[in-house]
């Protein structure tokens, strides 16, 4: 096949000692950037972009430059999981869903297992996405073009529907928590009318409530306050160091192959459309919980709850590069910065890039394979090291986490106000936890609220106020239909069960 020949050509471009060196540097930097909350892949790439300027001037330099930057991106994708699992602080927005089961696992002394599962799943997700990019790029790019506002809203609705209705506890507390999330998301500039909402004249509120600021407080600081109360320690500290953790975890992982495949599909789809890695991780987690036989142990340290979001997030993060290469449309903020990079280096991303800059494109794709393999090896070797961090006494690690949270909050927007917000959200997280108000609906509403509202209103503008646009073609109608089924699934399940019981000689459940 033509693609394979081109890909081999790509490998020969990438496999020089210099480029491999850049790859390793990029991944290490990326892991650091991913670990630090607030400093995301997009910032990391943007910060280092000017440095690549000189690099890109040399012959073949643009390939080296993109290898460096994209490896930072892979590193950041891997790194986001580390603090999520160890400290309940999501280093990146897409690793929020990883905290749900990853951190409980760490508390049970299974941090190494959770980390291995997270890294391995990330790798699988990315690998599948790269294969999709290699062989299906033109087809998939055309698919991405079909997504107008109505279709995007349908995707967001589906994400929401797949995640909702799965909390334990009071449905009214779930509802309150969720609508609080939506309300927080609405603060700031309304992107459709350009009006300021709920700022009441405070300039600090102009930028609204940032998702990351909220989760750093709710999860990170909230967790520390909870552990302070119950006696000064992360329970994970007692864990033994297991050097063979990687191997024993790998032995378990193949069991979750259905979850992996489902998550890969969700991830690739969400990355391309562009729905984004964060919604992908939530959707994948929600579906895994519903479809798993041990769905009721999700949230208490089920390894499947780590596999699902990590696979989807990485698949989405990787496939988000596809529309950038083929259409010149960024599928994620990081892709947007990379796109800027291409322009600055004098390349023109777009449909002709594959033709005009063959070496560059195939070099990039080859570096996706190699970068992810290299990344996996690096982070897996470090698993015992990361797990050992939990053995540091709590009275040292806790203030360090606080400092990291403060830095993270500040770097999101370079605003001191956000640091205060993190403290406030920490208290909210602590109180909500103790009163069993669920936090996941709040953060999901916060991340999806704005996007879903503007997609909905863009769709309304283009249909001139007619709701029929959500059923106007098979694509949008199909996604909406799926969403409705998922939303009412608990109800449907009950009705089905009822029907089955009524039937004579009912099968044993």
């Amino acid at each position, binding site marked *: 096949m033509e693609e394979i020949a081109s890909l081999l050509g790509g490998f020969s471009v990438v496999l020089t000692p210099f480029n491999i060196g850049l790859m390793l540097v990029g991944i290490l930097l990326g892991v650091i950037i991913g670990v630090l909350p607030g400093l995301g892949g997009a910032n990391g790439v943007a910060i280092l972009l000017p440095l690549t300027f000189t690099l890109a001037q040399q012959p073949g330099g643009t390939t080296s430059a993109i290898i460096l930057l994209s490896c930072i991106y892979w590193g950041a994708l891997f790194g986001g999981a580390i603090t999520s699992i160890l400290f309940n602080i999501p280093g990146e927005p897409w690793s929020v869903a990883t905290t749900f089961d990853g951190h409980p696992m760490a508390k049970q002394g299974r941090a190494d297992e959770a980390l291995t599962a997270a890294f391995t799943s990330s790798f699988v997700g990315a690998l599948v996405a790269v294969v999709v990019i290699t062989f299906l790029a033109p087809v998939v790019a055309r698919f991405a073009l079909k997504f107008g506002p109505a279709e995007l809203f349908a995707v967001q609705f589906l994400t929401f529907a797949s995640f909702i209705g799965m909390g334990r506890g009071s449905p*009214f507390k779930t509802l309150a928590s969720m609508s609080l999330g*939506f309300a927080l998301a*609405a603060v700031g500039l309304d992107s459709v009318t350009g009006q300021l909402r709920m700022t*009441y004249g405070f300039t600090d509120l102009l930028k609204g409530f940032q998702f990351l600021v909220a989760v750093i407080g709710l999860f990170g600081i909230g967790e520390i306050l909870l552990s302070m109360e119950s006696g000064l320690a992360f329970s994970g500290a007692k864990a033994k160091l297991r050097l063979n953790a990687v191997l024993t975890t790998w032995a378990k992982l193949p069991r979750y192959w259905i979850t992996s495949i489902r998550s890969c599909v969700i991830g690739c789809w969400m990355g391309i459309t562009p729905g984004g890695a964060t919604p992908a991780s939530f959707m994948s987690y929600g579906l895994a919980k519903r479809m798993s036989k041990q769905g009721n142990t999700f949230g208490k340290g089920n390894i499947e709850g780590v596999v699902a979001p990590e696979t989807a997030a990485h698949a989405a993060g990787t496939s988000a590069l596809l529309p950038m290469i083929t259409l010149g449309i960024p599928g994620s903020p990081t892709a947007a910065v990379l796109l800027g990079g291409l322009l600055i280096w004098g390349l023109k991303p777009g449909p002709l890039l594959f033709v005009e800059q063959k070496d560059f494109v195939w070099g990039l794709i080859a570096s996706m394979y190699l970068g992810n393999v290299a990344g996996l090896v690096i982070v897996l070797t470090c698993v015992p090291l990361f797990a050992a961090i939990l053995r540091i006494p709590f*009275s040292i690690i806790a203030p360090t986490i606080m400092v990291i949270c403060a830095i993270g909050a500040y*770097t999101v927007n370079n605003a*001191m106000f956000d640091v205060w917000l993190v403290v406030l959200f*920490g208290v909210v997280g602590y109180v909500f936890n103790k009163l069993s108000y669920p936090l996941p609906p709040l953060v999901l509403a916060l991340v999806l609220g704005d996007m879903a*509202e503007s997609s909905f209103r863009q769709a309304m503008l283009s249909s001139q106020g007619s709701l029929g646009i959500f059923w106007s073609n098979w694509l949008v109608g199909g996604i909406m239909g799926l969403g409705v089924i998922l939303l009412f699934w608990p109800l449907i399940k009950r009705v089905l069960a009822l029907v089955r019981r009524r039937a004579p000689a009912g099968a044993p459940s």
Partner: protein
Amino acid sequence: MSDGEGPGGPPLISVRTMDIVVALLMIAAAAVVIGDSLRLGMGWQENEGPRAGYFPFYVGVILAVSSAVNLVRAVLDRNGAGKTFTTKPALLQVLAVLIPLAIYVGAVAVIGIYVASIAYMALFMWHFGKYPLWRGFLVGFAVSAVFFLMFEIWFLVPLPKGPLDEPLVPVVSAFMKSIGL
């Protein structure tokens, strides 16, 4: 998750009281949201769809209604009065973290994040971990130094600085350059 069994001691606040307080706060938040939605217009505009206040308005209403239900439930709940939200020692323990944290954030704004972090870490380790102060300062300094190099020198991401660390930036930057980092 945790049902509030911290260090022993008589219950200070019951779950019921806290439930009521939170529900009332949420209703207040809902009022703020609804108030501004009315200013923005919460209707459905012909040919254009929902106006800027449409979604926030209904979100506010749902928030208010669900919180009202939570409020009524909490008031009627006789069980909750028996469950402990927090005890006095537990609350003190939490405040012992929270108040220094607030002071730390306040200090960040004034003397910069690096210096404030060193002091915060040293005092935290000294108070909770019974480490000697000098060790706390050492660890704090190490952590701050790593972040300083990473943010100010390599990534060029400026964090809040005060009179003590601001002048260091060009000096350290020149030094790192001279040794090839």
